[in-house]
């Protein structure tokens, strides 16, 4: 008689690990991060370093306060994704305290106060971004113009938070520019005649780079198609409908899809599994809600872009959406 060790079924095949999934997400962010570095300057790298460092420190601190083992949580890579997403959303050469503060808020308040990985109802990166935007509206909307972004002395002054005259050194984002010009009763046609919004090409490039990363995630089966499709579809549908009503005042769907946080948000932020809806139909509703809210905030709200608020608002709705979209199990009549 030969004895053998036993284990419960299923005996195989090998599953993916959370750490592998997070590594794939980070890998998919590489083209976007490189493009951001190219168009926004070295300030992006500084933000990345600050946010990643703070994220790991806060994760380790929170885990030890909660008396949890550090190893598995630090190795699973989820906190790295949070840190990178915050950094990529921030303007370059932000006073150094802001990325640190924002990331600490995201990791400590939005993640660990709710119980850590898997328990947070809100997307930690977007909670951090919204926290900074509401608390430091001026600094958070100051995007250095191309020349200033690569000027070492100016950048240092800005980074240490020194008092400085920003006149002429900042440029509006394409979304912000269009918004301001429309408020000044210019038409989109006039804006286009003046050469279009400045930085529109950079915005397009950046969005395309995130789009490439997103397609990689879809191809590897890391994210499901429903949320990105619903986000982009709803955003495009809203933009198209309003453009049909008045093409002078409402920019095209293409403009909305390729500017601001559109593709970063659709592929990397709205798809955060923990805070998103998990049912198949719920994901469509959740994504469409984000797309619609982004359009409303961009067009009628107080901010040029609204991804963070749209995501956080829909995070709030997730428990309800999940409950109302339970799929019909096999063998259950339709009306049950």
């Amino acid at each position: 008689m030969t004895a053998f060790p036993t284990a419960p079924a299923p005996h195989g095949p090998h599953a993916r690990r959370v750490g592998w999934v997070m590594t794939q997400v980070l890998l998919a962010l590489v083209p976007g991060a490189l493009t951001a570095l190219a168009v926004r300057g070295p300030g992006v790298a500084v933000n990345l370093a600050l946010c990643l460092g703070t994220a790991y420190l806060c994760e380790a601190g929170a885990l030890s306060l909660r008396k949890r083992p550090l190893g598995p949580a630090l190795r699973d890579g989820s906190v790295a994704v949070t840190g990178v997403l915050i950094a990529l959303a921030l303007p370059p050469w932000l006073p150094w305290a802001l990325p640190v503060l924002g990331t600490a808020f995201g990791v400590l308040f939005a993640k660990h106060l709710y119980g850590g990985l898997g328990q947070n109802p809100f997307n930690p990166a977007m909670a951090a971004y919204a926290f900074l935007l509401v608390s430091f509206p001026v600094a958070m909307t100051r995007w250095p113009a191309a020349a200033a972004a690569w000027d070492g002395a100016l950048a240092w002054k800005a980074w240490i938070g020194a008092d400085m005259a920003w006149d002429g050194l900042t440029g509006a984002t394409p979304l912000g520019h269009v918004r301001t010009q429309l408020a000044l009763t210019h038409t989109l046609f006039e804006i286009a005649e003046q050469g279009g919004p400045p930085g529109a090409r950079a915005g397009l490039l950046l969005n395309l780079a995130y789009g490439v990363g997103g397609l990689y995630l879809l191809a590897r089966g890391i994210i499901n198609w429903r949320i990105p499709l619903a986000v982009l579809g709803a955003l495009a549908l809203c933009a198209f409908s309003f453009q049909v009503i008045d093409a002078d005042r409402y920019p095209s769907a293409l403009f909305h899809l390729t500017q601001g946080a559109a593709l970063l948000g659709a592929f990397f932020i709205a798809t955060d599994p923990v805070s998103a809806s998990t049912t198949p139909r719920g994901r469509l509703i959740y994504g469409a809600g984000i797309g619609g809210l982004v359009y409303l905030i961009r067009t009628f709200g107080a901010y040029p872009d609204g991804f963070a608020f749209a995501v956080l608002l829909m995070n709030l709705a997730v428990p309800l959406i999940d409950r109302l979209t339970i799929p019909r199990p096999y063998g259950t009549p339709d009306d049950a």
Partner: protein
Amino acid sequence: MVRVESARYGLRGGLALQPSRPEPALPFEEAPLPPLLILPLQSRAGEAALPQVQVGERVLRGQCIARLAGPWDAALHASSSGAVIAIEPRPVALHAAILTVPCIVIRTDGADSALPRLPPCDPALMDRVAVLKRLAEAGVVGLGGAVFSTAAKLACAVAAEVDTLILNAAECEPHIRCDEALLSHQAERIAQGARALAAFLGKPQVLIGLKETLDSAPLEAALTAVGMDEARIVRVPARYTAGAEDILIRLLTGREVPRAGLPTDIGCVCLNVATVAAAGDALLRGEPLTSRIVTVIGPGLARAANLVVRLGTPAADLTAACGGYTDQASQLILGGPMMGLALPDDALPVTKASQALWVASAAQLQAPQAVQPCIRCGACVEVCPVRLLPQQLHAYARSGDAAALEAHALDACIECGCCDVVCPSQIPLVQTFRDAKTELAHAQGQDHRAVWLKSRFEARAARLEQLKTLRENRHQSARDQLRREDPRARLARLKARRQTDDTPPKEGAP
């Protein structure tokens, strides 16, 4: 000509675990007769069968050695000739666990002498009760792993007047290839069984769910040879859970078995092809079920084969028939990677439920990993063949929320394990669901018992109350009668009575 077509309805979820092209055929052989046969008296949860033989008694192949009380319960037979050397508890693989149950142990004599065959019991000529009785007496049970009595299943199908007979040849778990051997080498047994059962059920439509990577030619020829031209062979994807009864029924007919219902509720009866072949043997040749095909496979063995195995053969005899273990042998698994049961040693016997013996290498097995928190990625939702939300069920199972578990249809879970293997957090979902089901059943059982006890108590109280009222009424009427009676007439009556018999008067005593 028998029609061969693609499945008209889609398969939801599941996993692609098998190669999408046909695998090289395995050798098909008769396993050598083992020196010992271990036949468990229990095959499903419930009562153990009663032995019909005694220790020391000589038995012949096909002799009934144990039976259950129910009319449609399957009997148990000696699978070769020899002497009963013990009737004692032994560990056996039953359903999803190793349990120690009473077994009849036979030392074979090598002669393999058989009882004379029973006369044929062709459903085309015999009445239905005789057919069902024959199937039960011949020990025919579901050989796809469920080992439910075929007579009981068919009795249910007759009562429900089913219109569809489904033969399951989907064989969807890797390493399980016993039906493949049956289909390519003994297709005529399947065809004859199918014709007999179709006649028994009153000519329903016959659908055969055949895995798309298997060759349909032998079965087509066999069906044509017995005149079953109206049967349809439906090719089903070589995808895991396609062979689960409820899933296959939907794939072939578009009908869904109601939750807590049976296939017969929607006019279907579904039998594994091996079961149909065994039923054919029992009905047309009068042969009881004493052997089955078992796939013996894996890198832990010198060679792989499909073996015709006497029921009760210890696993060690099968691995020896396949050249013995190699260095790679890491675990011995009865069944496939998804639902198979890891055996603690190779002394355990093959039962009617055993489809494959897989000697796995360490590389094929999933190394135990630390469980991480659920990140709600939804990978489990995508693969669930019955459209459940495993991650929500897991959360509710952990918090013990019985109402939410019911709202999310925990009872519909078929425990296929798909969610388990795709979970990046390595959460043992199936185990969690099994435990939660057990707990729910226990809680409901307690509820039921409490309700039952209360109703019994109330019924008793009402009965006592009623008796009391009756008694009081009787006493009252007796008193009233006495009061109305004239005292002298009463005295006369009592005297008269004392003279006729000596029984004391009763009326006065309240």
